[in-house]
């Protein structure tokens, strides 16, 4: 479990707080989507989850973040990195090798995973992500979606409890974006890995995540289920966040008393709603 108490952070040479008094508990096995306007503190928040902040990035740090009861400020960040793996926003720069297999090997070697186990783990993560055929490929020639999968695989090989991703679908087309979400959902469901994902594609968040967190100017503006969020649409428009069109439609229908059910989050839901209205 990750517990964040009164977390605040001000980057060195900055006057504005990037994070301001954040309190949240993220339970094991949760799937949390983080969204918010640019500059709201989303990336900074992900850095605070495994000790990058305050250990690797300079600034004023307030409050405390604990992972399974251990304070992230008190042990080297590497120790937490194994538990809480992060895929950074700049996918190309975070790669440390030129070949897929070496990329996955890197963390395994560094953390001293027994050599007889290394081969097994590589085979397993490649299979889990469906990228067995990429094993000997040069990373430079891969598509954006494939690179994301390689990055996730190299985290997964370390058997983390939590995976944090910062806008992994930013440059992907709709099909590949959905594929990433499907993979994450499978990892979350089948292996119980906690997933924390920063994302602007609200439709995907609404469809896949268990909890939504909206950041605004370094503070948590909302935390709850996507359905709860959708129920108060108007509040979020001002924060630079939209809701899926079908959610808007259902909210309007409820307001006009044409429909008496709950707000809809996906086209499938909306279809059921319309069929009920038409009946």
């Amino acid at each position, binding site marked *: 479990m990750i517990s964040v108490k009164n977390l605040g952070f001000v980057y060195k040479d900055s006057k504005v707080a990037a994070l301001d008094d954040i309190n949240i508990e993220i339970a094991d096995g949760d799937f949390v989507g983080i969204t918010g306007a640019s500059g709201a503190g989303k990336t900074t928040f992900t850095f605070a989850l495994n000790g990058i902040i305050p250990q*690797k990035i300079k600034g004023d740090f307030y409050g405390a973040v604990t992972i399974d009861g251990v304070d992230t400020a008190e042990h080297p*960040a*590497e120790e937490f990195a194994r538990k809480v793996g992060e895929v950074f926003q700049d996918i*190309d720069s*975070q790669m*440390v090798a030129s070949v897929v297999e070496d990329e996955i090997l890197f963390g395994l070697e560094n953390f001293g995973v027994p050599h007889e186990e290394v081969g097994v783990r590589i085979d397993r993560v490649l299979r889990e992500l469906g990228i067995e055929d990429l094993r000997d490929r040069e990373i*430079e020639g891969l598509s954006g979606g494939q690179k994301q999968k390689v990055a996730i695989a190299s985290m997964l090989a370390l058997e983390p409890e939590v995976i944090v991703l910062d806008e992994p679908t930013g440059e992907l087309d709709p099909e590949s974006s959905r594929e990433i979400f499907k993979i994450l959902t499978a990892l979350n469901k089948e292996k119980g890995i906690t997933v924390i994902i920063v994302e602007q594609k609200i439709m995907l968040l609404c469809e896949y995540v268990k909890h939504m967190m909206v950041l605004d100017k370094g503070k948590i503006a909302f935390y709850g289920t996507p359905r709860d969020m959708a129920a108060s649409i108007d509040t979020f428009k001002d924060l630079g966040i939209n809701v899926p069109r079908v959610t808007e439609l259902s909210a309007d229908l409820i307001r006009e008393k044409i429909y008496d059910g709950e707000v809809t989050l996906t086209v499938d839901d909306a279809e059921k709603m319309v069929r009920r209205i038409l009946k």
Partner: protein
Amino acid sequence: MNLLNYVPGDSFLHRLNPVTKLAAAFMYGIAAILCENVFAEALFIVVMILISATAGLFKRAVLLTGNLMILGLIMFVIQLLFVRDGSPLLVIGGVVLFTTGGLKSALLLSLRVIAAMLPLMLLFAITRMNDLCNALVKRLHLPYRYAFIVTTAFRFVPIFATEFHDIQDAQKARGVDFDTRNIFRKLGLIAPLCVPLLVSSLKKVDVSAMSAEMRGFELRGYKSGYKEYPFAARDMVTVLVLVVLIVATVVLKTIPK
């Protein structure tokens, strides 16, 4: 075509230990530098091209030789103009432009540069940087930090090249006249591009360092590497052949003509 990227293969050369490949490339270069005969120097180049052909790299070796010739040509001209031994060969208006000694040493030096550089360039075609780095750490216990910095630098070259190309496109699209033939004007136009390139490079290096650190870079020792790089009989044979080559070159030098 990138003349320095890795070409996958399963040839004798490919299967050598990365450390052997590096040592062999250097030893071949040393032999070429020790050699003082123009014909032998040319032979060094031809043999290297033939050796490359056994790894399916004939075309690459020829192209590289062509590129190295540019460097060779520059050395040639400089030597030709500055070495004044022997008898005058070309005299214009009473000024000796160059001499027989100059021609000979220019030819030797330019061929030597090509012969010595070619094996090092071909090393990239048969060795993955990661393997070289890991093997150097594993076999020679080189500090991983340095090996990592070198491989990362190589890996970033194409990334930065793409970035620079994109930045140049962005500026072209804004109406900056890069098509100008005036070289000074062109340099003046390229200068401002360094700002976005620098900004993005710094960001990239930052992310890269953070990513490596968070994945346990600091914890790594020379035993960490998963892949073993054992020396085999072929490595011994290769090194032996090259030792013989160097010795032969030195011996041949001392025999009076």
